[in-house]
């Protein structure tokens, strides 16, 4: 069967069961759009290509499927870069399709030509420039395979216009194999036995779970593992939801804005089992002091993550889920003695830390709204079941602290890159994946303005995302650093001139609501969540509230500023 490049692309998208694409057209992808319109694949037209990538990313994080977006060459392609880098840092499977000028013009500084493959080489898992239509099907299949296998990540495929229109014989490719790429899923049994030995001997063990647990769909296995052997679990920002936040064994988040008990326990534990984590500097603080008494076990599918930042006693290269399944089986067969008695002193110590310093805030009913109170109410009103995206800054940290995520795939946040402007388009993507679920973007007044144009996308496509703005009139997280470490010199962090978000919502054809007093928080949230269609809720919160605990950058994580 002879097909042109655009038709071959459609074939592969259908074979890969892609149901939704986020994109924005232009000259070099007209032919692709022409074919796309003939299929039943849903296309969500965004208002900025960065939004398309974040939306595909939110779709992928929420659904566990590979997100797909399509943009034109030149500025369309460069506009994707922040989104691609965001997905790369958080290991999110994406296939990013960019148009390119015809092959005979490449290198000529043609209109809207840019070397996007060169630009994105360091922020994609892999990328391709397709130069012959005969290669297109294979490359696309490889792109999907690479994006979702091993440690997932974004793959970019650059398709010149003449490749889209050139014809070739098309045969579906059944199986992809790349001889230089085969991720290790099965862990080494010898290493797992060493893990078991450490677990058996440990007096103060703890688990540190990260985004890898969510990506490998290992939450159930992790929960079983932790409960079977009564080991407390802390999570990185990316790991929130990997283990139920309300479980008595949960220590909450670790790191710079982690809980007191999680950070204290890390310093005191004698075995630390890191699963699907990469020991980022926001987690470890000063690495020399990090878990200094502990033998560290590190389970991860990506060998480059292991021994990169911290010394590891037992490395295990493998899929988190498969590794945990093996460990659970080994536990069933092992005699672990009286775990209850063995763990009690350690768990009691942790309970003491928990009581000594709880996450807390003081909401004066007559005072200004505390941002933490807004998240608290949101948590209660949604029964902890909403899909929550965040922007970046204080809003993100308060959400991480006060919305106790029970399940994976419910906290969608730019962890590694910390991309302001991620939350709204990501919420749109998550809503596209789950039309029936409540989806809320917890935003800052600064971040929301970075991709506010996507409100039009939400309205046009009937995606009823709710935006909760914690409006403090500041680039709050930067202001917090200035307050604490720069003598309150608030250089360039005051956002005096913001739009009226209620009117702005209305201008987009959405609903706008505002709360200025604590008593209005619940009613506004209730009304906003009940309103069909997209809503922006503007919460005028305390302007100079800080996120605590806070570990100053580069300090040991036990050195927390508590208030």
């Amino acid at each position, binding site marked *: 069967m002879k097909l042109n490049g655009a038709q071959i692309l459609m074939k592969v998208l259908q074979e890969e069961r892609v149901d939704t694409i986020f994109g924005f057209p232009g000259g070099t992808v007209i032919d692709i759009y022409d074919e796309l319109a003939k299929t039943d694949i849903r296309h969500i037209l965004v208002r900025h290509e960065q939004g398309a990538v974040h939306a595909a990313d939110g779709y992928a994080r929420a659904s566990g499927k590979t997100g797909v977006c399509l943009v034109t060459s030149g500025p369309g392609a460069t506009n994707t870069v922040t989104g691609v880098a965001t997905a790369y840092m958080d290991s999110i499977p994406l296939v990013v399709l960019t148009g390119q000028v015809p092959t005979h013009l490449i290198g000529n500084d043609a209109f809207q030509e840019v070397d996007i493959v*060169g630009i994105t*080489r*360091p922020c994609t898992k892999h990328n391709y420039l397709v130069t012959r239509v005969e290669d297109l099907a294979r490359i696309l299949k490889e792109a999907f395979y690479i994006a979702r296998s091993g440690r997932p990540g974004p793959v970019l495929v650059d398709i010149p216009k003449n490749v889209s229109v050139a014809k070739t014989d098309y045969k579906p490719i059944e199986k992809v194999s*790349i001889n*230089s790429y085969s991720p290790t899923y099965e862990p080494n049994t010898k290493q797992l036995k060493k893990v078991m030995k450490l677990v058996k001997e440990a007096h103060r063990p703890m688990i540190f779970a990260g985004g890898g647990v969510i990506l490998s769909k290992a939450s159930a296995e992790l929960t079983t593992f932790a409960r079977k052997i009564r080991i407390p679990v802390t999570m990185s920002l990316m790991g929130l939801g990997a283990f139920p936040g309300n479980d008595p064994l949960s220590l909450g988040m670790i790191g710079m804005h982690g809980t007191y008990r999680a950070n204290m326990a890390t310093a005191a534990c004698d075995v630390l089992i890191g699963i699907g984590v990469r020991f980022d500097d926001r987690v470890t603080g000063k690495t020399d002091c990090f878990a200094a008494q502990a033998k560290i076990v590190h389970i991860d599918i*990506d*060998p*480059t993550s292991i*021994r*990169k930042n911290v010394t590891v006693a037992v490395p295990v290269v493998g899929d988190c889920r498969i590794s945990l399944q093996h460990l659970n089986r080994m536990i069933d067969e092992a005699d672990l003695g009286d775990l209850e008695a063995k763990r009690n002193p350690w768990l009691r110590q942790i309970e003491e830390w928990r009581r000594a310093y709880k996450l807390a805030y003081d909401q004066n009913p007559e005072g200004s709204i505390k941002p933490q109170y807004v998240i608290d109410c949101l948590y209660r009103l949604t029964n902890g079941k909403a899909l929550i995206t965040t922007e970046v800054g204080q809003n993100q940290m308060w959400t991480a602290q006060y919305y106790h995520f029970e399940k994976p795939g419910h906290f969608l946040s730019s962890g590694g890159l910390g991309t302001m402007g991620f939350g709204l388009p990501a919420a749109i993507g998550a809503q596209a994946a789950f039309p029936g679920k409540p989806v809320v973007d917890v935003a800052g007044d600064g971040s929301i303005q970075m991709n506010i144009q996507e409100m039009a996308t939400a309205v046009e496509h009937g995606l009823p995302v709710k935006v909760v703005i914690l409006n403090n009139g500041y680039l709050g997280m930067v202001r917090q650093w200035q307050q604490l470490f720069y003598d309150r010199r608030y250089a360039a962090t005051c956002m005096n001139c913001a739009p009226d978000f209620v009117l702005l919502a209305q201008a987009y054809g959405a609903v706008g609501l505002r709360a200025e007093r604590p008593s209005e928080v619940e009613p506004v949230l209730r009304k906003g969540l009940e309103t069909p269609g997209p809503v922006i809720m503007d919460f005028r919160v305390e302007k100079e509230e800080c996120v605590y605990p806070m570990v100053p950058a580069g300090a040991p994580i036990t050195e927390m500023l508590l208030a």
Partner: protein
Amino acid sequence: MIETEEKHILTMLVDNKPGVLSRVVGLFSGKGFNIDSLCVAETIDPAVSRITIVTQANSLVLEQIEKQLRKLINVIKLRDMTGPRAVKREMALICIRAKRESRDEILRLADIFRCKIVDVGPQYYIIEATGDRGKMEALISLLKPMGIKKIARTGSIALYREPD
């Protein structure tokens, strides 16, 4: 304890495709690893190239470099060629000032170091030298006082010795 940095020779077989070298080199520059020398050419299989990189790193950084290189989709195989189990060679073309009084000395040195004279002029010789790093350094330091006009050196290439 600060570990000392040592020279390592890494060779890898890679897909012979546009952009692959750039991925390898970009990884070094992007992650702050260093490259002392670099050689690339096709192997007997035109679809595969061999890249040889000499780098300086302590053992932890070397481990990262190797893992990161293996992670690149286009890297088929990677080997550390440091140590006696691999044969290593470099090559240099050295254009040396050849005055009447030093011509004999240059020819004698070339002979001792088993070099070839590949071009001769009234005022210069161009010498082709091959050898391991130590030999190249020794030759260059002996020739230097006579006046090296220009020099072109390759980086190291290496092959593992076959098992007996």
